[in-house]
């Protein structure tokens, strides 16, 4: 075998103090962009020459250089005539243009390497073991300051080298802190950023903080409702950010009712809450308990989990979808501990009708997609990149991808006895996972070792071991991922964001807070209702959207609420309930709300899809969209949903008119129904004036139309 021979001879050469591919040449290929995605790192290479993406597989790259084109890339007698030098220095035409000059240091290194017989190097000595950075963190007193980063590579043989020039340093928020090619970081504006440092597949991060230099900041302590506020305040105080005050009662009630149940509070509920004289904190806390106990809570979170588990008749058939949805519903209604719920999914087997959790496997069907879904949904880790190459910004390797997929390699599906029924079973033979590169059998292995070791049986029941490892308190990702995900549902973004892309290069904005939430969740045996209750009871959640001079530029540290567009189902249900119109979906019982629909098949291509209801094609949180666009505005302004609802002959406006209510009462009722608050004096006057300016029924419809089209309706704030 050629590679072996080659390694032997390369090792012999590497004994001399010399340049090697591993230590000296490969970093140049990465730095000058040869191995990048648009160039030779592309899946099919470029112009017939392929290198591994970002050089993750140096041996492959070495062999590609050596053997492709029968070695024409090297001319050892006259290294300068080697294609490997002539092309990038543009001595001959190169599609990728000039990568380095003929008199550059890089040219010389490669020249010497060719002259000495292109030694590969010894992975036990020349591979990079770790990347170290100086300084470990950067704090700037004001924007405009700068700091030089130094990157040191530590090799397997213990030697070190300054590789600042060859390393890649990137900022995750360049408009806060940017970094130039010489690794100098400059502060652009107040805030935080992370520098991601990469060198030869190893990486490190440097947190950067740029303080607000404005004089006169005095921290005004606000009441803390629980540990969440403590961790938030600690960070805010350090960054010189003053949090917003509590939102008023009406705003709080609307926000928390929408966030916990996906429904608007009714006018009577708003009135009662405003009239209740119980001290604020207690009053709100009691309301939270009431909301969590409502059936609408179960409906709403059934939608969320239906999205993530892709409950859809496209994959499961009609009966299967109803069974799976019912299983999800019951889990939520009973507040089943989250770890138990996940274990039930991962270890489900048998008939999809008898054990509806087994539908989990019917969506993705194959070991690899099942593994990708499992890691993304339950661990917040995206393994998909590692199927084809080592993850570019994470430590996950291609090997790990197949090791993890191997846990599901024995899962089989076969038709059951009834129509649409499938049996999930564990195959007895031929279930080994094979590596695509050399077809070797890859045994299952956990992504990271657990504090409490879990033995892996090398048989067809291996996925049971995965369930034990994955849904455990000791798993460093499992509880953290769900704590972060649940947080994002109440704030519009995660402490790590995107929530299903957790990696070292995507750090949490408040690690102490995330750790505390995680610990609280495991201390309470994965009680998700406890987690939600804790979150919405915090002052942080209950803060107003108002900003002050100290927090107006902060969008990351939860110092004030940020408006979020209502989700598709909540929006549609909100229009119906505010207008007193009855929802009318095909194929489902009368008065089924959008939040109660079984799957995205019902009402397909209508209002809900236009407003970003997930079609459940993937387990990605990103499927649900919350943007606003022209077609949406067109629909709200001129489409049927709002226009028909406000003119409904049995709707709220019709009833108010028929009951003979006066203008003041109509205006108040419509504000309560649509915006969940009383109109202020000016609004009441303006509303009444409008009503008196024409036919009251027509004018009342107009007012309701305008309220439903207002930002105060479309957004949760």
């Amino acid at each position, binding site marked *: 075998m050629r590679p072996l021979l080659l390694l032997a001879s390369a090792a012999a050469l590497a004994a001399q103090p010399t340049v090697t591919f591993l230590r000296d040449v490969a970093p140049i290929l990465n730095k000058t962009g040869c191995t990048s*995605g*648009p160039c030779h790192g592309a899946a099919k290479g470029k112009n017939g020459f392929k290198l591994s993406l970002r050089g993750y597989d140096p041996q492959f790259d070495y062999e590609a250089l050596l053997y492709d084109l029968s070695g024409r890339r090297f001319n050892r007698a006259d290294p300068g005539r080697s294609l490997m030098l002539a092309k990038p220095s543009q001595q001959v035409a190169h599609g990728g243009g000039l990568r380095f000059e003929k008199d550059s240091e890089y040219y010389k290194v490669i020249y010497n390497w060719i002259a000495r017989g292109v030694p590969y190097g010894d992975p036990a000595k020349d591979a990079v073991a770790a990347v170290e950075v100086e300084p470990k963190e950067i704090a700037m007193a004001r924007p405009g300051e700068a700091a030089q980063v130094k990157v040191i590579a530590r090799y397997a043989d213990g030697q070190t080298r300054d590789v600042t020039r060859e390393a890649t340093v990137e900022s995750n928020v360049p408009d806060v802190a940017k970094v130039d090619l010489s690794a100098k970081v400059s502060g652009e504006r107040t805030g935080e950023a992370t520098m991601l440092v990469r060198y030869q597949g190893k990486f490190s991060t440097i947190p950067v903080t740029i303080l607000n230099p404005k004089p006169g900041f005095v921290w005004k302590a606000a009441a803390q409702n629980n540990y969440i506020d403590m961790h938030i305040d600690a960070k805010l105080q350090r960054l010189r950010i003053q949090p917003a005050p509590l939102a008023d009662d009406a705003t709080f009630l609307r926000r928390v009712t929408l966030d916990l149940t996906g429904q608007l509070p009714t006018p009577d509920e708003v009135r009662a809450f405003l009239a209740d004289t119980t001290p604020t904190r207690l009053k709100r806390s009691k309301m939270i308990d009431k909301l969590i106990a409502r059936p609408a809570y179960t409906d709403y979170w059934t939608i969320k989990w239906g999205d993530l588990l892709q409950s859809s008749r496209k994959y499961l058939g009609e009966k299967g979808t109803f069974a799976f949805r019912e299983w999800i519903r019951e889990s939520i209604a009973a507040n089943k501990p989250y770890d138990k719920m996940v274990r039930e999914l991962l270890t489900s087997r048998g008939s999809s009708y008898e054990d509806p959790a087994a539908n989990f496997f019917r969506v993705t069907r194959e070991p690899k997609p099942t593994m990708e879904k499992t890691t993304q949904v339950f661990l917040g880790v995206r393994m*998909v*990149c590692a199927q084809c190459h080592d993850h570019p910004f994470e430590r996950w390797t291609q090997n790990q991808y197949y090791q993890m997929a191997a846990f599901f390699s024995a899962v089989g599906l076969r038709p059951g006895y009834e129509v649409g029924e499938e049996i999930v079973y564990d195959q007895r033979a031929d279930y080994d996972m094979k590596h695509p590169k050399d077809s070797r059998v890859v045994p299952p292995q956990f992504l990271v070792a657990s504090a409490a070791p879990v033995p892996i049986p090398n048989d067809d029941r291996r996925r049971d071991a995965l369930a034990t490892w994955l849904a455990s308190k000791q798993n460093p990702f499992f509880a953290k991922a769900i704590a972060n995900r649940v947080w994002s549902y109440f704030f519009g973004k995660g402490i790590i964001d*995107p929530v299903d*892309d957790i990696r070292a290069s995507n750090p949490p904005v408040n690690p102490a807070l995330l750790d505390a939430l995680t610990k609280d969740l495991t201390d309470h045996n994965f009680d998700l209702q406890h987690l939600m209750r804790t979150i919405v009871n915090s002052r942080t959640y209950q803060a*107003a*959207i*108002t*900003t002050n001079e100290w927090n107006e530029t902060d969008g990351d540290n939860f110092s004030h609420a*940020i*408006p979020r567009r209502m989700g598709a189902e909540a929006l549609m249900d909100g229009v119906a309930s505010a207008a007193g119109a009855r929802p009318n979906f095909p194929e489902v019982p009368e008065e089924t709300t959008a939040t109660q629909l079984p799957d995205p098949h019902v009402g397909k291509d209508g209002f809900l*899809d*236009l407003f*970003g209801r997930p*079609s459940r*094609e*993937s387990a*990605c949180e*990103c*499927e649900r*969209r919350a*943007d*606003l*666009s*022209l*077609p*949406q*505005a*067109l*629909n709200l*302004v*001129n*489409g049927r949903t709002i*226009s028909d609802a406000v*003119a409904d*002959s049995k709707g709220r406006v*019709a009833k108010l*008119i*028929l009951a003979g209510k006066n203008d003041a009462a109509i205006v108040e009722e419509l504000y309560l129904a649509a915006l969940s608050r009383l109109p*202020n004096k*000016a*609004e009441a006057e*303006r509303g009444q004036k*409008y009503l008196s300016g*024409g*036919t009251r*029924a*027509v004018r009342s*419809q*107009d007012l309701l*139309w*305008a309220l439903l*089209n*207002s*930002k*105060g309706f*479309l*957004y949760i*704030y």
Partner: protein
Amino acid sequence: MLNIPGRPGQTCEGPTRRELMRIGSLGLAGLHLPGFFLSQQAAKAANLQEKYRGARGFGNAKNVIMIFLQGGPSHIDIWDPKPGAPANIRGEFKPIKTKIPGTWIGEHMPMMANAIDKATLIRSMSYTPNGLFNHTAAIYQMLTGYPPDKVSPSGQLEPPTPADFPTAGSHISKMIKMTEPVLPFVELPRPLQESGIIGKGGAAGFLGKAYDPYRMYQDPAEPIKLEDLSLRKEIPPERLKDRFELLKGINQSMPELEKALNAAAVDEYYGKAYDLVLSGKARDAMDLTKETDKMRERYGLHTFGQSVLMSRRLIEAGTKFVQVNWPSVANGDPEKTAWDTHAANFGPLKNLHCPKLDRALSALLEDMDSRGLLKETLVVAIGEFGRSPRMGVSTSGNSNSPDGRDHWPYCYSAVVAGAGIGRGVQYGESDATASSPKEKPVHPNDLLATLYYALGIDPEMEIRNHLNQPRELVKGKIVTDLFA
């Protein structure tokens, strides 16, 4: 039903001119993107101008008409005749001279033989599919610039998903700012389709449904209804104006929310929606009764001809991207409407398809040219592939009649015109049997890259897919030689 007295119902004709003047426009004027975005856009535009400075054709186009002949027209019978080839290849049709010296086309395209002096005929379109041979896979490749990963030759078709690469019109309507109160991206007369799969390769994919085309889904040769673009009967313009005044007041009385949503451009979208409904420009653009009978006849009194005519009206009104699909499902019956001539080739081409295409496409080129619209509009007429030069053989796994032709992506033809594209030019050449390009092959990605480039969009720009992975807008070579 509660009886609502008040104004008499308005018809779909919309407001009168006088009413419009009274109400005025409240949408586009006074609404703006926040300064931050503007400066970013300006910086990007400056870099791009620098990158392509002096390059031929860059930024020439303001809008695009994509005439997408789904089904796969037979290039050898229509655009690229080979009279010297063996009988089982050359087929029944005779070549005729065109206005391009030395370039002959099929005898059933006489009007295009004349109108080709306004266009470039590309005879070297070519790509090798990734083992996939059905229409949907090919359409997806053609219009998104990426090969589909889940469409198999066995007919296992995958419907559109939010993970799909966006179709060209979606990218373009997202990137180019609208100046007129019209729809940015319109698809006529119906979406792309193969069997039960509708819209694959013609949707916004990971850009989100908001950037899907406006799909008319009606036959422009018949009277059409446009409810969503017309003011509702019970809402005359005055009432819509009243409603917007109310809305403005309600929004203004929540100043903290207004401030927090400053960057969300809500008012901008509402302003546009208002203008769109009220101005009636988009609706008017689709009203073919405003054309003379003579003009309508010139384009052809059939679904395709009237769709092509409507595309010209939409472009005139300010739409950025109009896609006219051949109004038959891609794998439909060739004896009726489809280009998919496995079972019968010459009869349908001669009697049905070519006369329609010949009439409508020549009318469009002549009409656009005489109106000066061809200067800023890129017109492309192409299918997802051509058809096998040898008759009666199976290349896709379908069965073919002795005179039928199967799918053939390795070599086919396209007509491109406008925005500085060469006039009366043939680009590229096929081999003796029209089986593969003899010179200057143009991959569909190259054509897409050229299209983006013509619009002033960098084809190499980075986009982020549904997993937030960086991808190129399209991996293709800009064919600058297409520009005169």
